[in-house]
């Protein structure tokens, strides 16, 4: 199949899957016929006649909730009730800070580790030990020592997203083709120029793969961290709606989280494409 035909076919298939999924959702949540019992005082106290039917929200309800949130995304009705746009802004700011810190730490250290087998062996056990620790476990430690919930959130993003970048940078640097390093040697290239002009571009695709994994982790972590700590952010939004057992808004928030995550991954993906080379 030609490139264009393949893209078209893939798009149609995607839409078909979506259609099937939505159809299943609709059928599963069709409201049962409302009982014709009189709406007496007891029933009124249970909110009959006013509230939505029990259970999973219908597509229409989800659409309605989405419309409400998206038409006024920047409202601010108090410290604990802000629009989804503002909440996303807070989350993205935290992610940005934690992720930037992680890059600043991971790339230089990864470089050093990649160039020195001694350092690699010495540090590897600690990396493997710290890598699998969940953000939910870091949070209490961070809160206790850092004593500020916003900075703790940034720290938790940092400590969870630094590992893929660190490991990939080290690996990329260590695997630079011998040939290119020999070329640099015969041309008497000094270490700093070699690092920036040969090793960095050679290792860049691997480094960016690490960065792409890391941004996914960072976005995942911020939602979890904000649910724990509260205050502002998309994670807090989910928690607040969960408190009200408002499943519709929770689902809407999840979709938003997914879309934003997708966009972040796409952006880093473009960066990755820009530094990829064909050998």
């Amino acid at each position, binding site marked *: 199949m030609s490139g264009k035909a393949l893209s078209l076919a893939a798009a149609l298939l995607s839409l078909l899957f979506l259609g099937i999924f939505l159809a299943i959702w609709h059928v599963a949540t069709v409201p049962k016929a409302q009982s014709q019992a009189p709406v007496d005082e007891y029933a009124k106290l249970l*909110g009959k006649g006013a509230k939505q039917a029990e259970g999973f929200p219908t597509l229409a309800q989800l659409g309605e909730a989405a419309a409400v949130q998206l038409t006024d995304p920047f409202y601010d009705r*108090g*410290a*604990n009730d802000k629009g989804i746009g503002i909440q996303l802004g807070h989350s993205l700011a935290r992610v940005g800070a934690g992720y930037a810190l992680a890059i600043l730490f991971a790339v230089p250290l990864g470089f050093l580790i990649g160039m020195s087998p001694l350092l690699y062996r010495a540090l590897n056990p600690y990396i493997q030990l710290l890598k699998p620790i969940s953000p939910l476990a870091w949070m209490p430690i961070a809160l206790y020592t850092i004593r*500020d919930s916003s900075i703790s959130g940034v720290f938790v993003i940092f400590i969870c997203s630094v590992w893929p970048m660190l490991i990939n940078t080290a690996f990329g640097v260590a695997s630079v083709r011998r040939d290119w390093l020999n070329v640099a040697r015969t041309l008497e290239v000094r270490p700093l120029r070699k690092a920036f002009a040969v090793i960095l571009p050679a290792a860049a695709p691997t480094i960016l793969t690490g960065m792409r994994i890391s941004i996914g982790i960072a976005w995942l972590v911020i939602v979890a961290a904000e649910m724990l700590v*509260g205050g502002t952010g998309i994670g807090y939004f989910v928690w607040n709606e969960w408190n009200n*057992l408002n499943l519709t808004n929770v689902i809407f928030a999840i979709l938003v989280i997914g879309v934003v995550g997708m966009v972040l991954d796409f952006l880093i993906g473009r960066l990755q494409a820009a530094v990829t080379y064909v050998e």
Partner: protein
Amino acid sequence: MSHDLDEQRILETAVLRALVPQGDRRRKFLRAVGVSSAGAALASFFPLGALTAMAQQKAKPERAELKIGFIPITCATPLIMADPLGFYREQGLKVSLIKTAGWALIRDKMLNKEHDASHFLSPMPLAISMGLGSAQQPMRVMTVQNINGQAITLHVKHKDKRDPKEWKGFRFAVPFDYSMHNFLLRYYVAEHGLDPDTDIQIRVTPPPEMVANLRAGNIDGYLGPDPFNQRAVYDEVGFIHLLSKELWNGHPCCAFGTSEAFIKENPNTFAALFRAVLSAARMAREPRNRPLIAKVISPPNYLNQPETVVEQVLTGKFADGLGNVKNVPDRADFDPFPWQSMAVWILTQMKRWGYVKGDVNYQQIAEQVFLVTDARKYMAELEMKAPASSYARVRIMGKEFDPSEPEKYLASFAVKKAV
């Protein structure tokens, strides 16, 4: 005198804002009725005059901008309603009420001074001051936020198991180890012959998750704060087995407090806060104000619950989950007086279940942590009646508690943690 009118106006606007949140409708109302007659109509319902007078006597607070943490439950009604109804504002305070994710965080944010004052569970300032379950820091209770207002809620499938003796193996949830809920639940099942540590399971669960856990069948019931008892009924997953007022009528639940350090550094702010919360409590005690209060604290910024659920809790006219409409006006009440005998009771229960070991100087700790003297002072300023004594004998589930004999009381229990 124009100064008076200004302040009065501020209060009126706050109240009017609460009654008619939509700005354009409010303006239409005012235009139709006229500002002063609107003010007069409101004044007949709210003690604006007294409050205005109070507002003038204050010394300037050292810090006007404060952060107060709260958990979105009806126990915190006075400190929450003080925001939309202008009680903080009239004391010259600009308060941000920060909805917090759980009691552990409430504690941590007070310990690391991210919050200036906070909603607490009554036992928490005692525990924190004694260094139990956390780093030690002197915390103080300014007012009790609410009395009664809790309930034991069970899953609808247990509607024929109303006798606690049938609850062997049940799993219950409470909001926190150092909570009245935990102590009352243990007391209740112990009175019916069950050992709460071995015959039932007690888990700590954040209140909003209690309903979800009940629905999922993870727990069989909980002794939790409202509005989550009423919410379980509203969502048709649970029924209200027992109101906490039937265990101990007038039991304390939540408190409003701050750290000793904050009080020392900001005495005027402390005073202003005290007055604000006391004024709110006074308004909250009046049954006729309850529907309005329900309306202003339900929005997403505060409790984020359906208004009818909150209204049922505050007015005491509620559906019980078994098909009956009950009418219990003092289901929840907001008496702010921090009885030191309450502190002593809490301490005896903490010792009973092994949360604290060794000798406890009940009276000393109670008097250090529960600021009765200050409460009396500010209540007097606001012309609120305060009881003469700081200790009271009470009947809890038919058994008398004498705060002057805590050790005897403790020894009188058949069921307690093996030492």
